[in-house]
């Protein structure tokens, strides 16, 4: 099993927050507008509340088995073999999520920034970054997240402030979008947007106990909910819902519309950096989590020999979608709408089995 260093509250929050909230920079806002009109900004709050509810089960599970991560808990509760199948499915799902995100990133980048570059070239550069970050380990990924969150935060605030010239408050109406019922149902289903929070279970051993995990989990979800809601609100302010659903990357377009005279215009380079850094953290973290699970299943102590084969697998998986249409309306949509089955349900099952079989970890106070 891999031995990772410990990291603190700030690093963990930065890591999880970036992993969850960076999706708002991709195609998701346009899809949200397609589904619920201009009610997306509070639909996401419903999703956040659902995610908080789902996170409660994970927290209870981690509390029941202090100082253990989700893989160790699964081993204890389900037994070695069943746990291996369970974890293999979960790990594969995370790897698949990472591959979809890479492909989504590549396609959007190709449309806006590098139209002449082949997707494989863009992906290979991305994969090099993942390899470097994975070699350096989880601690470094967390530190990198902590380091760039200041840049991301400042950049985002700047883009929002500069975009305020294009705000149209009337775009907010009709306030209920396509109807409250639709908003609520999709809010529940799209709780998968916050699904990456469950990776906290995978990295639990690197955090300072279940109380800290509770703080980190709830704080991350609240912050991510606020950030996503605010981003969608700003997006709605700039683009009416009729236009918004046609745009591949609304946040990028928003930055491109900034114009304050001859030299203060076209601020998309600034946005591009935020986008890239955030994506590097998100996908590296997803990849590393699946690497940790894989290492746990097969009791591998040294991650280094398997980084390259797993990156190759990731590359292969990301080439599966035929086109950007497949990626956006097929894979990403499926992931956001049905990802909760993989994110939340396994934890609930493990918790129920643990309760039935009366399995419990050692108390922290011993």
């Amino acid at each position: 099993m891999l031995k990772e260093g410990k990291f603190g509250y700030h690093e963990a929050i930065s890591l999880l927050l970036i992993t969850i909230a960076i999706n708002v920079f991709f195609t998701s806002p346009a899809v949200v507008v397609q589904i619920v009109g201009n009610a997306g900004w509070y639909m996401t709050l419903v999703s956040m509340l659902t995610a908080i509810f789902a996170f409660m089960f994970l927290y209870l599970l981690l509390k029941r088995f202090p100082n253990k991560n989700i893989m160790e808990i699964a081993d204890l509760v389900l037994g070695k073999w069943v746990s291996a199948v369970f974890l293999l499915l979960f790990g594969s799902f995370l790897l698949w999520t990472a591959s979809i995100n890479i492909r989504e990133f590549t396609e959007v980048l190709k449309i806006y920034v590098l139209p002449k570059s082949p997707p494989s070239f863009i992906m290979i550069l991305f994969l090099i970054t993942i390899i470097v970050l994975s070699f350096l380990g989880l601690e470094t990924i967390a530190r990198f997240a902590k380091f760039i969150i200041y840049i991301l935060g400042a950049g985002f605030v700047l883009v929002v402030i500069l975009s305020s010239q294009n705000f149209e408050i009337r775009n907010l109406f009709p306030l209920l979008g396509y109807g409250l019922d639709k908003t609520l149902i999709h809010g529940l289903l799209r709780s998968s947007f916050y699904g990456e929070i469950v990776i906290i279970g995978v990295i639990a051993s690197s955090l300072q106990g279940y109380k800290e995990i509770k703080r980190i989990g709830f704080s991350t979800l609240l912050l991510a909910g606020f950030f996503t809601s605010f981003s969608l609100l700003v997006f709605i302010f700039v683009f009416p819902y009729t236009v918004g659903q046609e745009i591949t990357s609304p946040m990028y377009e928003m930055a491109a519309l900034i114009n304050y005279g001859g030299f203060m215009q076209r601020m998309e380079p600034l946005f591009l950096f935020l986008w890239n850094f955030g994506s590097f953290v998100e996908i590296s973290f997803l990849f590393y989590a699946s690497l940790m699970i894989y290492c746990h299943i097969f009791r591998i102590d040294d991650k280094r020999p398997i980084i390259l084969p797993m990156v190759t697998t990731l590359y292969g998986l990301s080439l599966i979608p035929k086109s950007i249409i497949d990626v956006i309306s097929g894979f990403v949509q499926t992931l956001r709408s049905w990802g909760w089955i993989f994110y939340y349900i396994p934890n609930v099952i493990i918790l129920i089995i643990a309760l039935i079989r009366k399995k419990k970890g050692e108390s922290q106070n011993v």
Partner: protein
Amino acid sequence: MLEELKKLFVYRKPSEHGFRFPEDPRESELWSSYRGKKSNLQDNSEMGNNSQNNKENREDTKRNKRNKEEQIRIIKPMPINELVVGRGNTEESREKNKDMKKNDNAEDSKTEDEKNDKENNTESDKEGVKESIKVENTWKEKEHNKQESGSRSDKNQKKENSKSRKKEEGKDNNQNNMHNDEHDIHVSRSIEENINILRDIFNLPVNQDVIIREFIIARRIKACIVFIDGMIDKNIIIEFTLPQLMNPCALEGFETGCPIDFLEKNVLSIHQVVRMDNYKSVIPQILSGLTVVFIDGCDECLVMESRGFEKRDISVPSTETVINGSQEAFTENLRTNITLIRRIVKNESLITEFMIISKTNNILAALLYIDDITNKRIVEEVKRRVEGLDIDYIAGSGMLEQLIEDKSLMLFPQIISTERPDRVASFLMDGKVALVCEGTPFALAMPITFFDLFHTSEDSNLRWQYGTFLRIVRLIGTLLSLLLPGLWTALILFHQEMIPTSLLSSIVISRAPVPFQFIIELLLMELSFELIREGGIRVPGITGNTLGIIGALILGQSAVSAGLVSPSLIIVVAVTGLGSFTIPNYSLALAVRIARFILIGFGAAAGLYGLSVGFTIFCALALGMKSFGVPFFTPIAPKTRSNQDRIIRGPFYKQEDRPDYLNTRDEKRMGDSPRRWVKSSR
């Protein structure tokens, strides 16, 4: 005349110089034991034969010389401060002597010795330094008594005892220590014997800068002084050593026995004199520029402080200049450098430990830390790394830095090298450890973070607003130096649509006559700039600066006129260069210069996206880096408690805590109300 020149320049065998192997049976025995010890390294069985047969000795000369080289390698000069503080060492050696003499005079003085020992031990344990002087006096009295009775003792018995003692000690030690023990040669009572040993060790008379001056003390006792020409202050010998020792009245009041104690106390007016009894400790002192006096009939010698080699004066810092602050820089002399630090940190807890860091050139380094502040584990780790070196030659702190840093593959420095004593003092006060090394005017401090490399001593000397402003300027400079050429490449090659229209049109017009690809043009200019910079450093004095200015002006202007580069690129390269000059640490500036070229490559490959990839990789490498266990970007990533002293520098009186990541023994820099007058004036 020719004969004279031949004498000087033509190599002659040692025997032709009058070098002889011992003839006298007593001398021969001592000699053989001495040479045999060296032969032991290769073959113990040959030792006995060597002592018996002079012819065989001659045949073995070559082998012995090789052994001698090995012997010299493991000889380590005693740290300078031990000449003052190191009485403890001589005490130890005296204790050894005592043991030996106890065996000789077991029957005569056993009870008395034990009594004295007990007294000495209890006194030294209880009273410390002052009491140790008493102990020394007691010991000297005791030694005087022994010397009187020692004349009656059996010398052979003594040698056997010492041999067996050394053998026993050797068993306990590791291989290196064993080698040391093999060369643990005791100073002989015979002056001739000592001279022979010295001649052999120093390869005399082939080696012509080691001087052995024989003379007679007060027309009564044979003696000699040994020193290396050029390493000593001749006045000490001419004015304060030889005249006093050769004065016919020098031994007035002295009766019989070994006069070493009498001479040390009454005759020699030298400020630092230490007694030593072993060549293992004597030889390094001679090599370090001290003068040693051997006296016939004494099994100890006097080591006198007489260093007087040429050294550079204290000058103004050349790589870390400041406007407001100290204008002193380190020199190549270790003692001067330590003094410069001690002048700033006048604290009894400032510890200076000396260590030999290379085996052949015996370079000395001083480890400095403040005992009450510094975390012991850091000190131990630094010591562990330095003591773990097994290198023949180290020229100074630059080499040492490379040998003890955490990861040599990393681009960024993990130990800070500074030429400013005030910076070292501030590092020490923070709880860091400093290493000052002979031979280079730089000191090393560790552990460090990025912010230590980014700060200057001027930041603290200026008011906080000015300090903060300078740091922000420096940060912008660093970022421009690192990113601007890469950004420019990305924009020109990939993202023209992102450049404002008016700027884009002027760039297009200026680039129109340039025949090269943009990336070639940029690399050409960057390379030219690096050439000018490197050339400016290597060309001496004012010519260097002139070369820089003329080179930049003429090259830039001519390149534009010739249509080889565009004016906009000249501006980019110039701003990049200016930015790199704002980086206060030379190693960090070099790292940024290298990183810049790599980022240009990334920018040329995939525009801003490629630049992001490159920047992320560099950031990740830097974030994963540690300096003696401290992450490079502490206290930001990972977050630790810290003062407002990263980019923005808060008021000085609010810098209350020492860096959290150092886990110092005393965490507070100042009291609860560092400006008590503020309260009192209200």
